[in-house]
């Protein structure tokens, strides 16, 4: 049913429909509304889950690890410093092949403290083994949670999934969202039956010491499964479309790519603003398109290559940094063209909207303007030059 609903509440609703058995989280802005609403559902008897109060995100992640290991569908949510406090546990969850689903309300990283939106928290977890999906709007955030559980619990995948939605812009934004019916969710997402679990009746050990004779194969297996996700995810989104009528590619989504000479590549809610600018540019006859990257891990390098190989100029927008190197998304987009005959003549990299710096249509127009010139490497957009002159001395 279509409702006018806050992003966090919409996500809490869809998580409720997924019927997790255990929820554990620690409050952190801008994620808090999600787990507040879930706790309310449990206390109102609308969700038969166990909510576990913890003293930190490290414990929240440990609780869902343990719960998932016993074969129970589990859920957590966090942001920024909270995600980083989970860091070591998150690698364990992936390594133990546990299909936990987490919402990351994407937010900037300290120091200095900043509660506002960018994607540094999520992007910094790219090597953790978690599948990482990014939403453009609240509807997509809702739908990705259903897709996430379906993907995570697939017997040939068995990996955790992080669903990322831009903090405040989507978590605190209110818009029209179609919240699915429980019966449809039940059909799409049957109860989770773990292929292996901690069970006193049939004891197993998970995540034990593995010596050099065996360790490397476990990492190889993770890497191979990540590759498999590139095939599996579009199948699951196709099944999703059949059930719910909303179509997602899951990996990448093109917007006006046909005949596009210039293409912007971006992740998350900024894609909406970019689409507005593209519509205006197209109305003036300018051949510009967008390639939205919905899945950052596994990285859909082949799909990105196929989508961009005909473009002459590509602008990659990052909302995170890899300090001391090329911006993360730009680095990987460029790598997708290494050694290929067909490639854009320019792949420029832009850093936009860090720590909640507002991304306006003018920000995007500036990116398009700069794409006309020489190749840019990590060009910051909307910097305030007067602030750069300030000095400690």
């Amino acid at each position: 049913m279509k409702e006018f609903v806050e992003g966090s509440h919409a996500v809490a609703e869809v998580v409720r429909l997924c019927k997790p058995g255990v929820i554990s989280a620690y409050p952190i802005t801008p994620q808090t509304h999600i787990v507040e609403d879930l706790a309310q559902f449990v206390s109102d008897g609308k969700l038969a889950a166990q909510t576990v109060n913890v003293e930190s995100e490290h414990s929240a992640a440990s609780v869902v690890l343990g719960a998932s290991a016993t074969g129970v569908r589990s859920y957590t949510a966090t942001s920024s410093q909270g995600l980083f406090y989970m860091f070591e546990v998150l690698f364990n969850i992936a390594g133990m092949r546990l299909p936990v689903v987490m919402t990351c309300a994407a937010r900037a990283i300290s120091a200095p403290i900043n509660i506002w939106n960018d994607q540094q928290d999520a992007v910094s977890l790219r090597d953790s083994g978690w599948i990482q999906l990014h939403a453009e709007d609240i509807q997509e955030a809702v739908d990705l949670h259903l897709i996430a559980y379906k993907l995570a619990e697939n017997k040939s995948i068995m990996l955790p999934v992080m669903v990322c939605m831009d903090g405040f812009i989507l978590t605190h934004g209110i818009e029209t969202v179609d919240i699915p019916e429980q019966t449809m969710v039940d059909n799409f997402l049957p109860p989770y039956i773990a292929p292996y679990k901690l069970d006193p009746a049939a004891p197993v050990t998970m995540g034990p010491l593995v010596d050099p004779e065996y360790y490397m194969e476990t990492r190889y297996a993770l890497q191979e499964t990540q590759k498999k996700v590139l095939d599996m995810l579009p199948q699951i989104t196709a099944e999703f479309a059949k059930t719910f009528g909303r179509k997602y590619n899951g990996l990448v989504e093109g917007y006006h790519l046909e005949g596009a000479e210039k293409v912007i590549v971006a992740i998350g809610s900024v894609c909406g603003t970019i689409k507005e600018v593209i519509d205006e540019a197209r109305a003036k006859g300018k051949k510009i398109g967008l390639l939205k990257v919905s899945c950052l891990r596994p990285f859909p390098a082949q799909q990105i290559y196929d989508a961009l190989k005909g473009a002459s100029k590509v602008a990659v927008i990052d909302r995170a940094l890899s300090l001391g190197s090329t911006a993360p998304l730009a680095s990987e987009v460029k790598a997708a063209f290494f050694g290929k005959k067909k490639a854009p003549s320019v792949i420029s990299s832009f850093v936009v909207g860090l720590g909640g710096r507002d991304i306006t249509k003018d920000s995007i127009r500036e990116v398009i303007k700069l794409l006309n010139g020489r190749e840019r490497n990590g060009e910051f957009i909307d910097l305030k030059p007067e602030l750069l002159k300030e000095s400690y001395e």
Partner: protein
Amino acid sequence: MKEIRIHARAGQGAITTASLLGYVYFLQGMYPYAFPNFGAARMGAPMNAYVRVDSKPVRLRSQIYEPDYLLVIDPTLMRGFNCFSGLQDAGIAVINGKDGEVEIPKLSARQKSLVVPATDIAMKTIGRPLANTALLGAFAAATGEFSQEALLEAVKKRFSGKALDGNIASVKEGFEYVKHKYNEVK
């Protein structure tokens, strides 16, 4: 597309106002996107909430710099800060306050501002200084964006009991105030 910017202090219900305003549009079959912009969250700090609305889903995610309409919930924010910044040439501002106590900046010929004693109305109707629904009643009358009935329908779905009665009365008084004082209903 219409853009509305709300000026308030954290705790004065700007998000509730944006949410209710968006909900009225939603019930009319429109696609609103209501969203807040916080400073570091603390009671009393200046903050904005926004509503951007269109007949198709809104994709633009930036803040609102050139609003069609302004709602100023706390007129003390107008001291030393230009709440009218970027107001469209034919823009309308609805300000909570009393005539003579609110200093309106010089407006262009087509811009309009309406001062409505929404807090006084709320004290009478709700018994607490919750000016939001009275301001929305005034907004409906001043802008013609939606009817009083459409606003009341949204209020009825969002409030219940005593709060509902008070807020219905607030909407009506805010609407009537603008209708009589400014002698216009769009």
